[in-house]
């Protein structure tokens, strides 16, 4: 079975290459569907496959840039990318990430940065999950109220309308993001991007996990647009991160290329699935993914607090990530296949008539 293992020329480790393809496929599906880079699942995944942590992170950002580019191309053809909004936010993201990175270096100089960062991560993920499910509950309450009044809620309306309130703050210059259907002060996306970039910089993540809900809840973007626009940003910031990690010698290109082959297929499945799932469907599954990620981070944090149970807790964290990734990937694939089948059947029926 030697042919199933490949020697990585830079990291110098023998890697089970079908594992890389499967990992790429999974992150392609989930990333394309939610608009995420997926570092929270790929980095531990690469580590489990045998990469040292430094190479796992560098290789992850390299494949993330390529994969997000593939997904952005597909989302772009659906009209799900607001390039002007993406570029506007990119400016804020760069500033925010830099502030966050400087803050981490300052924390590093004075001590235990890992513990602090992980707890911030836990609080943040808990907040995101709470916002998503509070929004779902609010939307249901609105529907119930409308039903009692004999009315109907617009299919574009959200439960939480923070975006609309923030859009109402008119500080010049005002910008119309046509594709996203958002008219707001230019400072709104810039400030949101600085905030999400700062958090991403502190946590050392790509930021999609924070930016996608921020686009929906703070800027008031429709979910599909938030997914596509976020991927555009992930692709650009991923390229920058790739340059940085590669220059430091921490990227295994061969592994990134193998993963990209799987991700190319996965991204198509994930992006096309958004055609058949409504915005709230994406939001609910995203909320579940955040909970999966939260449990994994909590388990790793507990592992560092209780060294005696470290092995069990780390294994549980890995099992949690793999379980969630598999379950969500299967759900998205089923949705895509059933939606495509129904569309093709409807087309045939229309042609028959």
């Amino acid at each position: 079975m030697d042919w199933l293992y490949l020697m990585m020329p830079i990291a110098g480790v023998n890697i089970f290459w079908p594992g890389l393809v499967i990992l790429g496929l999974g992150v392609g599906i989930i990333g394309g569907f939610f608009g995420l880079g997926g570092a929270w699942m790929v980095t531990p995944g690469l580590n489990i496959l045998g990469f040292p942590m430094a190479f796992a992170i560098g290789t992850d950002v390299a494949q993330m840039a390529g994969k997000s580019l593939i997904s952005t191309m597909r989302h772009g053809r659906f009209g799900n990318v607001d390039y002007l909004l993406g570029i506007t936010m990119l400016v804020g993201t760069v500033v925010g990430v830099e502030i966050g990175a400087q803050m981490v270096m300052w924390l590093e100089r004075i001590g235990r940065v890992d513990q602090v960062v992980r707890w911030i991560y836990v609080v943040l993920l808990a907040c995101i999950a709470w916002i998503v499910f509070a929004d779902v509950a609010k939307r249901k309450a609105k529907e119930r109220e409308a039903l009692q009044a004999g009315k109907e809620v617009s299919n574009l309306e959200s439960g939480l309308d923070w975006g609309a309130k923030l859009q109402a703050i008119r500080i010049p210059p005002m910008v119309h993001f046509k594709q996203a259907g958002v008219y707001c002060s230019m400072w709104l996306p810039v400030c949101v991007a600085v905030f999400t970039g700062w958090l991403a910089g502190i946590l050392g993540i790509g930021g999609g996990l924070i930016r996608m809900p921020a686009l929906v809840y703070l800027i008031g973007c429709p979910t599909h647009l938030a997914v596509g626009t976020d991927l555009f940003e992930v692709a650009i910031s991923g390229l920058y991160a790739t340059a940085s990690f590669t220059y430091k010698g921490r990227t295994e290109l061969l592994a990134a290329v193998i993963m990209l082959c799987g991700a190319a297929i996965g991204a198509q499945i994930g992006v096309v699935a958004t055609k058949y799932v409504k915005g709230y469907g994406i939001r609910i599954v995203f909320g579940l993914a955040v909970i999966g990620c939260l449990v994994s981070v909590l388990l790793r944090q507990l592992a560092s607090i209780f060294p005696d149970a470290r092995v069990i807790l780390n294994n549980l964290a890995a099992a949690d990530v793999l379980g969630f990734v598999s379950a969500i990937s299967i759900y998205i694939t089923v949705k895509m296949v059933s939606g495509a089948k129904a569309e093709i059947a409807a087309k045939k029926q229309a042609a028959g008539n």
Partner: protein
Amino acid sequence: MKKLRRVWAFVFCCALSLILLAPSLAAAAGGGAKPIAIVADTRFIENDLLHWWAQMYNESHLTFALMTMIIIPLLGCVLGFVADFFMKMTGINLEHRELAEK
């Protein structure tokens, strides 16, 4: 809704205080590690292409980084077009979608 706002304010304050208190929480530990230089071991690489790639890594990280920066987006575009081509063959409409939240 008022209750929801109060819960949100509480969670926000907790998150904010955690961020603000982070430096004092971390004050007790030691300094950071020194950077490590990694060298690719080319002695056991049999494939010529991989050998050349590892050799380039050892000689210049800048060339290595530039090559990676060219290869990744290029490969992303090529794979994107190829996957798109095959997806179009399924007969699905890949140009339009209905924008609806519910």
